[in-house]
């Protein structure tokens, strides 16, 4: 048995196509084989019931309508998804009160009349197959079947209870809008629309996932976003042969360029003004139904250090904060490694007095430096995870108490030196400055620590170069992920956030079409600047 397994693995490795993969792909089309809607109402209803076998929330109501109540029809909807008020008011009441004029009416004309004039609902669709009818019911619409007519009407009556727009916990902000996305797709697209009132903001709907049929909306500014990226996103999403999409995280993994990299190459955010900002820079937003996290593609490494407040506060302060975040990111990855290499390999770099203080602290501690730091970082990760998983009130208490006790007890018991606790605390705190890259930072930190415990500062230097090169090799939808230090024009928004009135061009590597963001005008420093300013031709003209 073992040999056979090895042979199969070898054959797989040698010829590369995993043949077994294709046999198992069964066709999961069970419920679509039900076929078309027939003329007889009862037949249709019983096939519908056969489809939704023992699902208690499917409501079917038969009624008679027409002048002399000669026609019979039925209404089918899922209780909870469809709002009962729309079903009764907008659908049942008009049909029943409808008085047909004289003359014989064929079933087909009745359906047309109903859909055009009688029904008060906003969106009515004529459907001929059972699968569409079932799909409509499942997404909250009401299906109207008429005896003798082979078409059914699917009326939009979505009305489940939604969460109201609230402030997102993950991205708290001092200045700037506080509204965050909700789980409902329509509210999210509406929030973005309110930010960018421009007909060129395209919203294309896609449905993905055989079992879950999740709605995904691609939003991009036509003329600003790069067509190639839009095509690529559309191509990758529409070709997803997957079972289920429950959160935008699924989409992120399926369509990103480097599936195995610890770095996320697709940005996700919960705030509409962030998405609006990124759309204006030429990116494509992917709004997934059922999750408040909207993906923005393509993402650059620099976006880790850009927060919304940078653009709302003073440019000077914002630039200093951005540099602080960059140093924090460097510290959170390299601080433990540098500490190890300084105390275990190159003691001569430390000034003499500092060396003696560290030597005093380390006197008698049992573990070598590398193991000591590894233990402390490991316990810090446990504490952080505990802090997140527990309910909010308890979480805060746990992390503080844990840190205090752990640090204090370990030092006094002589297990760990005080400088080690300080370094790990510094690393932990600085990792909170770049929340998006938290998980990748903790992975890379361990790798570089191992390197530094083997080769000291040389290992750290090689680790830094490897990280730099690896980042350089990543692309996000064809666009260089880490353009860092390259001689590009959009340095205006990287390490330093230049004042808004100087940022005339959109980022060169993302936007393609209309590049000018705002006409270059002298800042209103001169007293008379306001009068003579005729901002007639703005960045783009609204037809």
């Amino acid at each position, binding site marked *: 048995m073992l040999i056979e397994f090895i042979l199969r693995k070898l054959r797989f490795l040698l010829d590369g196509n995993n043949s077994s993969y294709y046999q198992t792909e069964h066709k999961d089309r069970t419920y679509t084989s039900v076929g078309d809607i027939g003329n007889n109402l009862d037949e249709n209803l019983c096939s519908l019931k056969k489809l939704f076998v023992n699902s208690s929330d499917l409501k079917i109501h038969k009624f008679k309508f027409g002048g002399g109540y000669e026609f019979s029809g039925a209404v089918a909807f899922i209780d909870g998804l469809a709002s009962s008020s729309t079903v009764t008011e907008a659908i049942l009441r008009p049909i029943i009160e409808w008085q047909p004029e004289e003359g014989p009416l064929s079933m087909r004309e009745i359906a047309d009349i109903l859909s055009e004039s009688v029904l008060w609902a906003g969106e009515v669709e004529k459907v001929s197959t059972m699968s569409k009818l079932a799909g409509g019911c499942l997404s909250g619409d009401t299906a109207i079947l008429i005896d003798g007519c082979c078409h059914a009407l699917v009326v939009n009556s979505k009305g489940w209870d939604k969460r109201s727009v609230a402030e997102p916990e993950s991205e708290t902000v001092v200045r700037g809008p506080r509204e965050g996305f909700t789980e409902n797709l329509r509210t999210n697209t509406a929030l973005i629309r309110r930010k960018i009132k421009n007909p060129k903001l395209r919203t294309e709907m896609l449905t993905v996932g055989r079992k879950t049929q999740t709605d995904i909306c691609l939003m991009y500014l036509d003329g600003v976003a790069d067509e190639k990226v839009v095509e690529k996103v559309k191509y990758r999403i529409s070709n997803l042969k997957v079972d289920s999409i429950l959160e935008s995280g699924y989409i992120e993994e399926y369509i990103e360029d480097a599936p195995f990299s610890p770095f996320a190459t697709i940005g996700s955010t919960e705030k509409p003004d962030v998405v609006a900002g990124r759309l204006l820079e030429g990116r494509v937003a992917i709004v997934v139904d059922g999750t408040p996290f909207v993906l923005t593609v393509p993402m650059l490494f620099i976006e880790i250090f850009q927060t919304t407040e940078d653009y709302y506060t003073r440019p000077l302060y914002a630039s200093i904060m951005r540099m602080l975040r960059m140093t924090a990111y460097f510290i959170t990855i390299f601080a433990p490694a540098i500490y190890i290499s300084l105390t275990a390999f190159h*003691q001569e770099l430390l000034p003499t007095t500092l060396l*003696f203080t560290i030597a*005093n602290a380390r006197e008698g501690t049992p573990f070598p430096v590398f193991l000591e730091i590894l233990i402390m970082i490991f316990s810090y990760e446990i504490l952080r995870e505990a802090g997140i998983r527990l309910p909010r009130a308890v979480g805060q208490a746990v992390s503080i108490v844990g840190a205090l006790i752990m640090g204090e007890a370990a030092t006094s018991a002589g297990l760990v030196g005080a400088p080690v606790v300080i370094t790990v605390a510094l690393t932990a705190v600085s990792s909170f400055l770049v929340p998006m890259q938290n998980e990748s930072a903790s992975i890379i930190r361990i790798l570089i620590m191992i390197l530094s415990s083997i080769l000291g500062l040389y290992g750290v230097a090689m680790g830094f170069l490897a990280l730099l090169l690896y980042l350089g090799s990543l692309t996000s939808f064809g666009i260089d992920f880490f353009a860092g230090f390259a001689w590009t024009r959009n340095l205006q928004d990287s390490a330093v956030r230049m004042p808004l009135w100087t940022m005339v061009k959109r980022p060169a590597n993302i936007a393609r079409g209309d590049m000018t963001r705002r006409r270059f005008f002298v800042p209103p420093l001169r007293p008379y600047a306001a009068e003579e300013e005729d901002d007639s031709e703005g960045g783009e003209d609204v037809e």
Partner: protein
Amino acid sequence: MIRKAVKMLNRQRLSLIATVLLASLLITLLSGCWDNRELDSLFIVTGIALDKAPDSDLITVTLQIGKTESKTGASSESGSQEDKNAIILKASGRTPLHGIKRLNFNSSRSLFYEHNQAVLFSSELAREGLKEYLDFFLRDYESRMEVPVFVTDGPTDRILAVDLEQEQSAGMYLARVIQDLSKLSPYYKVRMLDFLSRTREETVSALIPMVAAYDEEDLQKLQICGMAIFKDGKMLDSLNNYETLGYILAMGDVKLIGIEAQSEKGHVIFNTINLDTKRDVKLRQDGGVQVKLSVEGALGIGELKGFNGMDFPKVIPELTKMAEERIKEQIAETFEKAKSLEADIYAIGSEIHRKHPKKWEQMKSSWGSVFSNIDLTVDVKVEIPETGKSMISLEMEGASHEDR
């Protein structure tokens, strides 16, 4: 399309497995971490001293180790000699390294020289010549080039074992003292590199500060007591603090030094604001060398005594004349001593070597005698811009009243 995606996935998955394997192998392969020296497995040397062994012709190497006591009460390494803040290790051998190697057998931790603060030679050893003992400091990776060098007046272990209340160890104390002195003038601080480069030039003689330990009631104190003169690695003689001042003034770039002048009218101490010396070396036809030192600078009056009955406008020229006299006298005095010892401590030889290389070839062999009959002219031009807070001293008070 799917086949391509799957192939891409296979390739990526394969390369991931391989890199993980390679990395893990790298770790096992390299887990030797050769250079890893834990801090608590080190003896941090803060002072090295070489001395003549009392009886045999060996030398004793004394290492001063900074003591690290752990606050957490864990076991502390007991040095061979109970001492409050420094452990002293002693060993004797034919050369420094030979002695140190013998030390390794009885000490539990490896020696670490990077943080060495001072290198001391005892004067007897210095008199016999240090050249053959310098090679260890030149060749060893861990010995630093910018470590200050000292000659001790008497046996070195007494200096290193001195128990100072302020500093952690004598080595650090000496480094601090020299650091402050170098603020007065850079020529006080003699680093290993300067000593090496001067010993390498056969004609130039090096100067090294001398240290002496003296007892004050029960406390032991360290004090810099002048400079030792070396020629070709051998110590000839030493300059006391007063003569060293003359040498410092001759070399120039002097700050904060106190200059004392005495005359029948009164006594004054100046604080040097800055004094710089321009040196002009000319070769005479008859093979002799003529050196002209021109000293300029500014002095501030630190303290006045006497000059009673003189008003301020008359005192200043008097003081200037006294200062210029004094400086000229001091420089000449030290120069005389250097000439008597035929020790070119001013590195005039290397200056000639640089400026007139061809003539230098002939003079090189007989440089001792040429140096001893150099005729030196010193002219000093000093002004006294600063007189401190008060202009006139109390004794001078009476005179100004009568004039008005």
